[in-house]
């Protein structure tokens, strides 16, 4: 029986009732990765180690964990000891980390098997996975179309059924948006829920790791394992991690869902809008109540984000100087020349743009007008959310203003065009709030995503609402044809 497109829950059953062994499962997963190589989901495979670990699990026979023997793909932003980690950048194309990210270590300690590192937008900067040094990732639903970004490789690997789940990171929508474009489920947890130790930093106050999977339930399984305070990351929450599966089946009668007044949905593609209205009705049928709420500053989210994220990244990426690791230019005159050439050769254009903008926003004379101003507006946006959550439990928006688009069709002339893809997702990163994207149909054969934003630490509520929707619909069961690959 093929493992392709199976969820973690499905695979667990198959492993437990011995209809498949861990070794067979891993073999198949690795073969699927090879078969669909054209998708370009993976940057580095971990074949030898995966087979060894699967064998060991079969020999050991004790499987106390849900994740034991489950193949996972890890976004190439997470350091994995001994396994190349590139952030899809030339500057790290030869980097072998001497340690493993906490989030990944937790998954591996729980018995999961990392079959490879997934392709992404370079240093997580992008919304289409078109900036990778290793080439674009294809959307499994349509060749030559973007999977979304920056966690495009992870989303595509899950959507194509190569792995049941993968890790991603979300700074402005980089888990949710590719999940939407690829027809799968993706969750960005509360900021601080998952440790950032070993997660190569893009924008420190915005980055969060999270799961991409076929179902909300599988996301909960991963979230349970990945979450928790880490002394090595002092920005990780010191709160208790609830069991996110515990109340996932609760009926959602009386769930109050807010619709954001300032997001004028009539500006969207009419079909995308139609899907949104349909899902709203579906939720109403399930017992949810919709209330209009106002978040007066939310339209400022995109400019706010694009002041803060580049500023933080311009500093975070200074360590890529060719001295201790990564690409170093040859034949340089002196130290400064080494820096300039190594970095200019090693970084792609989008990364350079963001570093330059960030440097500018922090520079003397501009700091107050750009960086500080943005952090002030950020507080206003957060306050707006806090206010809204006085009267609602969650907020609902489309994940993305449109569906996946053709390679090269957005942002080539004007980078801001791509930035506006993040319109609905970015604000939750600014406020540190959890948010989930679930598939809710297709427009022109391409998946459309529905987003729910939750209150601080309320991933349980989001997972519950998403799961109930999925129990009563079959959008998440749709599979891409993959005939072109």
């Amino acid at each position: 029986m093929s493992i392709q497109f199976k969820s973690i829950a499905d695979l667990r059953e198959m492993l437990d009732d011995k209809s498949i062994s861990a070794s067979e499962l891993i073999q198949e997963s690795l073969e699927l990765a090879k078969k669909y190589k054209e998708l370009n989901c993976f940057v580095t495979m971990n074949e030898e180690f995966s087979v060894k670990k699967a064998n060991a699990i079969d020999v050991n026979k004790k499987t106390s964990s849900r994740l034991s023997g489950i193949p996972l793909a890890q976004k190439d932003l997470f350091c994995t000891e001994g396994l190349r980690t590139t952030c899809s950048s030339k500057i790290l194309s030869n980097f072998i980390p001497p340690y493993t990210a906490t989030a990944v270590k937790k998954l591996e300690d729980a018995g999961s098997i990392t079959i490879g590192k997934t392709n992404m937008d370079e240093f997580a900067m992008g919304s289409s996975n078109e900036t990778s040094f290793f080439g674009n990732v294809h959307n499994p639903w349509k060749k030559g179309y973007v999977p979304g970004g920056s966690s495009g490789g992870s989303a595509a690997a899950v959507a194509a059924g190569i792995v049941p789940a993968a890790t991603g990171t979300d700074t402005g929508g980089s888990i949710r948006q590719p999940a939407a474009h690829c027809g799968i489920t993706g969750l960005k947890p509360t900021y601080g829920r998952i440790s950032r130790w070993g997660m190569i930093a893009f924008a420190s106050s915005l980055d969060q790791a999270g799961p991409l999977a076929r179902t909300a339930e599988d996301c909960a399984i991963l979230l349970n394992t990945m979450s928790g305070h880490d002394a090595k990351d002092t920005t990780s929450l010191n709160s208790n991690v609830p069991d996110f599966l515990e109340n996932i089946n609760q009926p959602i009668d009386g769930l109050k869902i807010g619709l954001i007044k300032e997001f004028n949905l009539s500006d969207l593609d009419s079909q995308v809008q139609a899907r949104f209205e349909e899902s709203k009705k579906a939720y109403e049928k399930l017992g949810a109540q919709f209330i209009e709420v106002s978040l007066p500053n939310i339209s400022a989210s995109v400019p706010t984000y694009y002041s803060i994220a580049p500023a933080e990244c311009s500093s975070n990426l200074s360590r890529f100087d060719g001295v201790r690791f990564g690409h170093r230019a040859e034949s340089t005159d002196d130290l400064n020349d080494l820096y300039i050439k190594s970095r200019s050769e090693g970084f792609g254009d989008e990364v350079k743009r963001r570093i330059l903008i960030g440097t500018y926003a922090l520079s003397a004379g501009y700091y107050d007008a750009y960086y500080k101003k943005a952090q002030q507006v950020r507080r206003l946006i957060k306050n707006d959310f806090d206010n809204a959550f006085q009267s609602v439990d969650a907020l609902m928006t489309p994940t993305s203003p449109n569906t996946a688009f053709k390679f090269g069709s957005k942002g080539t002339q004007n980078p801001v065009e791509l930035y506006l893809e993040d319109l609905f997702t970015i604000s939750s990163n600014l406020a540190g709030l959890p948010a989930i994207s679930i598939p809710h149909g297709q427009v022109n054969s391409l998946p459309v995503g529905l987003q729910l934003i939750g209150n601080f630490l309320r991933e349980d509520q989001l997972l519950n609402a998403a799961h109930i929707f999925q129990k009563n619909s079959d959008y998440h069961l749709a599979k891409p044809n993959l005939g072109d690959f």
Partner: protein
Amino acid sequence: MDQETVRTICYLARLEIDENKSEKIQKDLETIIDLIGSLQTIDTSDVEPLYSPLEMTALMHEDIEKSDNKKEKFLENAAASNEDYFLVPRVVE
């Protein structure tokens, strides 16, 4: 955004832009700056900046040694190193 400013921020960031790309980059930067400049219209008087979404304070650690040094691996990753040091082109102070 004038040439001088672009040169300065390129130097601060230790980046150089190809001749043939420099005009587009400058234009891109101007577009992005316009985007982020739009925040000027929002009234933020008396608003405290929000540097982190966590309303938390730092947990500090005890002054007890715990090494995770991997000297060989650190030096191995460098483009130029010997058995003890990272090496860079000679710096004259």
